């Protein structure tokens, strides 16, 4: 598997994990290690004096690049401020840009997302936007200078997989930056399908963190991403309406 290159960074793994939803930091650590991920997202929230252990140190320890997100933001203004706070807190100008437009579906707000992306790119950020599966919006984000586009498969945490594979293919076909399937993955086959469709990477959280055995699911996702990538590059056979024999049609014995 060739490395995943985003902006000026290179990653050996094409699986990116979100760290939300784990029952404990220990469970998270076991899953991150099993996933083989080299990049993990974190959120920014008010300091909790009672909280024990630093998630950033733990991820550093796992060899993971820490990617802050702007989860919880509903406006471009809040997302931009949150990204700037994350830059201060984590000393990185990378951000997973998330601007939600609806708190029931958690679908992105396209207008606010694009406005935030433009401001953050102008401000020197490396912007990885969580976007809908709209090929036109993906292109606009790319034109705005985003370092990757991260279309959803289906709503965050829904586990419904890739709801619109046709749109995803359109995004993959025209993108000149890495395409990362972000959100909606439910199980390993969803991750494999995303990679087979030509995505450069998969970002998932709930599918692992809320699985009955997160570390085991993380290991499954790792294999699925690697298998999907390998299959994509191996060149699959075309789909046919009828069968095509795999044994020779010549030299068949006459037995009756």
């Amino acid at each position, binding site marked *: 598997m060739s490395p995943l290159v985003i902006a000026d960074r290179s990653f050996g793994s094409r699986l990116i994990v*979100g*760290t*939300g*939803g*784990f029952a404990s*930091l220990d469970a*998270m650590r076991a899953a991150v290690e099993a996933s083989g991920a080299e990049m993990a*997202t*974190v*959120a*920014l*929230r*008010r*300091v*909790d*004096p*009672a*909280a024990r252990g*630093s*998630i*950033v140190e733990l991820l550093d320890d796992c060899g993971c690049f*820490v*990617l*802050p*997100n702007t*989860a919880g933001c509903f406006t471009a203004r809040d997302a931009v*401020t949150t990204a*700037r*706070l*994350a*830059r*201060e*807190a*984590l000393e990185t100008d990378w951000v*997973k840009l*998330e601007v939600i437009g609806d708190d029931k579906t958690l679908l992105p707000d396209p207008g606010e997302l694009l406005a935030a992306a433009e401001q953050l790119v102008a401000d020197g950020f490396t912007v990885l936007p969580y976007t809908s599966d709209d090929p036109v919006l993906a292109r606009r984000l790319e034109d705005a200078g985003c370092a990757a586009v991260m279309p959803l498969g289906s709503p965050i945490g829904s586990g419904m997989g890739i709801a619109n594979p046709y749109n995803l293919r359109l995004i993959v076909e025209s993108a000149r930056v890495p395409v990362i399937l972000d959100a909606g993955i439910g199980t390993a086959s969803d991750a494999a399908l995303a990679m087979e469709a030509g995505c450069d990477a998969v970002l998932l*959280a709930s599918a692992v963190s809320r699985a009955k055995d997160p570390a085991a699911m993380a290991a499954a996702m790792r294999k699925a991403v690697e298998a999907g990538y390998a299959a994509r590059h191996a060149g699959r056979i075309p789909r046919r309406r009828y069968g095509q024999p795999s044994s020779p049609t010549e030299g068949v014995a006459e037995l009756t």
Partner: protein
Amino acid sequence: MVSVTLNGEARELPDGATVADAVRAAGAREDGRGVAAAVDGEVVPRGRWQARELAGDERVEVLQAVQGG
């Protein structure tokens, strides 16, 4: 005393309190590593925490990385 809203709660800090004091009052670790602060929605860079005094009625947010995404 100066009255501020610190992470959503009304707090009284000594006169002359700075953003650095607010960060400590919020319960962040002493060295402030992994922490960021905003006053009235504007980011205050770490290098200015000591110098930036708080005025009354300001909203101070002290944030850090948590599990998410």
